[in-house]
C-alpha cells in the first residue's frame, strides 16, 4: 500500500493542532519512560542534554567569574580545577556528543528516510538509559570524588591524583556505550529502512552528516572505552601501563586518548554541519549547491579525522616526520570543510533569504566555523603550535568550533524544527534578539581569549598577571551576554510550547521530507508507506507564491 506524498505546500490559514500525535499517544510518565517511539526518545534526550547544557553553562560562568580578577575571586584554586573539569566533561560527554545526533537525529532521521522508526527501537531506548546511568555515575564521581584532572585526564597526573577518578572513568566508559548504540542504530537504519524513492543520493544532507558521525561513533568510541578502563585500573590497582617508573608509557595514553578525542570533534561538528545544509536551503529557498560534494565531504572529514590525532602531540617528543605528517593530514580537514563552506555560500547566492532566527544562526555558524577552522589550520602548523601550545589560543580555537559552530547548529536545529516537533511556532522577534545576543556574546567571550593566548596566557591557570586583566574582563562580560541570550531562549521556547501560534504542516515552506508529515507527527510518522518522488532539497519547481511563504520577519 503506497501513496505518493504530496508536495509540501502553503500552511493553511488558521492551521489546527492535530488531535492525535506522538505527544499525546499515552500521557503517563510510564508511557514516556518505556516508549520505543524514536520521537519520544528524542525528547527524552532533549530534556537530558538541556539539563547538561545548563549545568555545563553554570560551571563555565563560575570559571569566568573566577577569572574576572587576577587573584582569587570567588572560589579556591582547587575548586577552580574541579570547575573546569566538570565544565569540560559535562559539555563534551553529556551535551555535545549526544546533542544533535541523539535529539534531532533520533527525531528526524527515520522521518527523512520515510521509516516508521529506527532499526532497533529497544536498543534506542536502552541507549538513553545507558546515557543517564553513565552521566549519573560520572557526575556523582566528579562531585564526591572531586576529580581535578581536566577533561583530558592526562597521565601520570590522572593515575596518581588523590581525588577519586575511577567512577568518572567508568561513567565516561558507560556513556561511550550509549554513543555506540546510537551510532550503530543509525547506520543500520540508513542501510535497511529507506523508503522507496530514497536512494543514497536522495537522502537529505542531514542524514549524510549523521551517517558520517555514526561511523566515527562506532569506530572511535571503543578505543576511548579501553583507555578509560586502563586509567581506572591503573589508578585503582597501580598497574603502571602509563607509568614510566614501572616501565609504562604516558605518551601511549595521549595516543590512545586522542585517537578518540580528535575524531570526537567531528562527532560534535558534523551533525551541526548537516543541520546547516538542511536549514540553509529552507531559508534561501534554493536548491542546495553541490549536494554530492557536501555529502562526500562529510565522509571525507570522518575519514581523515581518524589520522589527525598526532597534532595534539607536537610538543610530546614526536619525531619531526610524524609531526609534519600529522600537520598535513590535519590541514586536509580544512580542505573538506572549505568545500562545504563554499557550497553553503553558493546556496545563499541569489537566494530569497528570509532573515529568521535559523538564518541568524547560520550566519553565526559560518563565521565561527571559518574563523575557528582557520585558527585550526594555524594551530596544525607545527612551528606556530609550539608557541600556542596550552595557551588560551587553543581554548579559544576549540570553543569557536565546539561552542561556536556546534551550538549555532544546535540552536538553528532547535528553532527550525521546533514547529515540527511541537506543532507550534516560537516568536520570531524574540528569536532574532536572542540570536543576536548569542552571536555577539560569543564573539566577546572568545576573541579576547585568542589575544590572551597569543600574548602567552596559559590555559587552566587560576591566577594571571595584571596585564591580562582587561581582556579577561571583556571575556567574562561576553560570557554574561551569552548566558543572558540562553535565558531568553529558554523562556520564549517554554512559553511557545503551550501558547505558541499553531504551526501547521509546513510553516517554512520547506521542501525537506520531514515537512510532509503533520506537526507534530503522528506516532507512526506516515499513514502509508511514503514514496518520495523528488529530492529533499529541490525548490526549483515550487510555484511563485510558495517561494514567498516564510516565517514572519
Amino acid at each position, binding site marked *: 500500500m503506497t501513496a505518493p506524498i504530496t508536495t509540501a505546500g502553503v500552511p493553511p490559514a488558521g492551521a489546527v493542532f492535530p488531535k492525535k500525535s506522538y505527544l499525546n499517544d499515552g500521557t503517563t510518565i510510564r508511557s514516556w519512560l518505556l516508549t520505543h517511539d524514536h520521537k519520544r526518545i528524542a525528547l527524552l534526550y532533549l530534556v537530558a542534554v538541556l539539563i547538561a547544557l545548563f549545568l555545563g553553562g553554570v560551571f563555565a560562568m563560575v570559571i569566568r567569574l573566577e577569572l574576572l580578577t587576577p587573584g582569587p575571586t570567588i572560589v579556591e584554586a582547587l575548586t577552580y580545577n574541579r570547575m573546569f573539569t566538570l565544565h569540560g566533561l559535562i559539555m563534551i560527554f553529556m551535551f555535545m556528543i549526544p546533542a544533535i545526533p541523539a535529539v534531532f537525529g533520533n527525531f528526524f532521521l*527515520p522521518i527523512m528516510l520515510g*521509516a*516508521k*522508526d529506527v*532499526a*532497533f*527501537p529497544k536498543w534506542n531506548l536502552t541507549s538513553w538509559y545507558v546515557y543517564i546511568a553513565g552521566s549519573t555515575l560520572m557526575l556523582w564521581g566528579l562531585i564526591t570524588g572531586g576529580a581535578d584532572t581536566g577533561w583530558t585526564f592526562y597521565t601520570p597526573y590522572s593515575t596518581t591524583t588523590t581525588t577519586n577518578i575511577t567512577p568518572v572513568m567508568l561513567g565516561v566508559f558507560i556513556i561511550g556505550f550509549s554513543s*555506540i548504540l546510537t551510532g*550503530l*542504530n543509525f*547506520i*543500520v537504519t540508513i*542501510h*535497511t*529502512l529507506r523508503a522507496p524513492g530514497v536512494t543514497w543520493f536522495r537522502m537529505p544532507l542531514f542524514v549524510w552528516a549523521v551517517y558520517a558521525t555514526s561511523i566515527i561513533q*562506532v*569506530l*572511535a*568510541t*571503543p*578505543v576511548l*572505552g*579501553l*583507555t578509560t578502563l*586502563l586509567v581506572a*585500573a*591503573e589508578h585503582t*590497582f*597501580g*598497574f*603502571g*601501563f602509563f*607509568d614510566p617508573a*614501572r*616501565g*609504562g*608509557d604516558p605518551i*601511549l595514553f595521549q*595516543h*590512545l586518548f586522542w585517537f578518540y578525542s580528535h575524531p570526537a570533534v567531528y562527532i560534535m561538528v558534523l551533525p551541526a554541519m548537516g543541520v546547516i545544509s538542511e536549514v540553509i536551503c529552507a531559508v534561501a529557498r534554493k536548491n542546495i549547491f553541490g549536494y554530492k560534494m557536501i555529502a562526500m565531504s562529510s565522509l571525507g572529514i570522518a575519514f581523515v579525522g581518524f589520522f589527525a590525532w598526532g597534532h595534539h602531540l607536537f610538543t610530546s617528543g614526536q619525531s619531526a616526520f610524524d609531526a609534519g605528517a600529522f600537520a598535513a593530514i590535519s590541514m586536509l580537514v580544512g580542505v573538506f570543510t572549505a568545500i562545504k563552506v563554499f557550497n553553503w555560500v553558493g546556496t545563499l547566492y541569489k537566494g530569497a533569504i528570509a532573515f529568521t532566527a535559523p538564518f541568524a544562526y547560520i550566519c553565526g555558524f559560518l563565521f565561527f566555523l571559518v574563523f575557528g577552522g582557520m585558527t585550526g589550520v594555524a594551530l596544525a602548523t607545527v612551528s606556530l603550535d609550539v608557541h600556542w601550545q596550552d595557551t588560551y589560543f587553543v581554548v579559544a580555537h576549540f570553543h569557536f568550533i565546539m561552542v561556536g559552530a556546534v551550538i549555532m547548529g544546535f540552536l538553528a536545529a532547535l528553532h527550525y524544527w521546533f514547529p515540527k516537533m511541537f506543532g507550534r511556532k516560537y516568536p520570531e522577534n524574540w528569536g532574532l534578539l536572542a540570536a543576536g545576543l548569542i552571536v555577539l556574546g560569543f564573539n566577546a567571550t572568545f576573541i579576547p581569549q585568542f589575544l590572551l593566548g597569543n600574548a602567552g596566557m596559559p590555559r587552566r591557570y587560576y591566577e594571571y598577571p595584571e596585564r591580562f586583566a582587561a581582556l579577561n574582563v571583556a571575556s567574562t562580560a561576553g560570557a554574561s551576554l551569552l548566558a543572558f541570550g540562553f535565558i531568553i531562549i529558554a523562556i520564549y521556547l517554554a512559553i511557545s510550547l503551550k501558547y505558541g501560534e499553531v504551526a501547521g504542516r509546513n510553516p517554512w515552506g520547506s521542501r525537506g521530507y520531514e515537512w510532509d508529515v503533520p506537526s507534530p507527527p503522528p506516532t*507512526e510518522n506516515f499513514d502509508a*508507506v511514503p514514496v518520495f518522488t523528488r529530492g529533499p532539497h529541490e525548490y526549483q519547481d515550487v510555484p511563485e507564491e510558495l517561494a514567498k511563504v516564510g516565517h514572519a520577519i
Partner: protein
Amino acid sequence: MQSSAARKMTPEGWLEPPPLPHHYDTIENHQAALRFGMWLFLGTEVLLFAGIFLGYFVFRHYFPESFEQAARHLSVVLGTANTLLLLTSSLTVALAHHNAEHGKNRNAFWLLMASVSMGAGFLGIKAVEYTEKFHEGALPGKFFSFSEITAPGGPVFYVVYFFSTGLHALHVVVGMSLLTWVAIRCWRKEFSPTYYAPVENAGLYWHLVDLVWIFLYPLLYLV
C-alpha cells in the same frame, strides 16, 4: 520470551516466527538489519581489543627480553589446549547455526550446549593459569614480585597479559550467556529457515571471541 507461548507450531515442527516489528516490511529485511547490526558491533569489539594489542606491540618493542622471558613462563600446553577448545567450540557453533537454519532445533541445542561446556573448560584452564601466576607473583604493576624475569619490563608484560586475557575472559562469559540464551530458544523450537538470526548473531559473537584468542595465543605464548 513471552511471545513464544502464543505462537503456533507449524507442521514442519518449529514455531512460527515472532511477529515482524511494525517498521519493517519483510522478515528478510529485519534479519538483514539484525545481522548488519551485529557485524557493526563486532567492529567496535575489534577496536576495543586493538588498543590493548597496540599496547602489546609498543611494550614488546621497549622490552623485547622480558617479554621473551615471560612468554617462556606461560604454559604452552595449557595455552594450546585452550586454543583447541575454542576452535572446536567455534566449529560446533557453526554447526548449530547450520542446523537452526534448517529447523533442526534439537541438534542445534546440543551443539550449542557443547560449545558452552567448552567455553567453561576454557575458563577453567584459564583459572588454573591465573592461580599459578598469583603464587609466583607474576602480577601486573606494583604487585609484581616474580624473580625469574630479570630483564626490565616484567610488570608491564603482566599488565598486558592480565588485561588482555581478562577482557577476553569477560567476553567468553558474555558469549557463553548468549549461547545459552539461544540454546534455550532452540529447545523451544523457535528457529526455522525464515527465522534464525539470533543463533547466527550469537554465533558471530562467539567466533569473534575465538578470533581474538587466535591473536592473543601466539603473541603471548609463542613468540
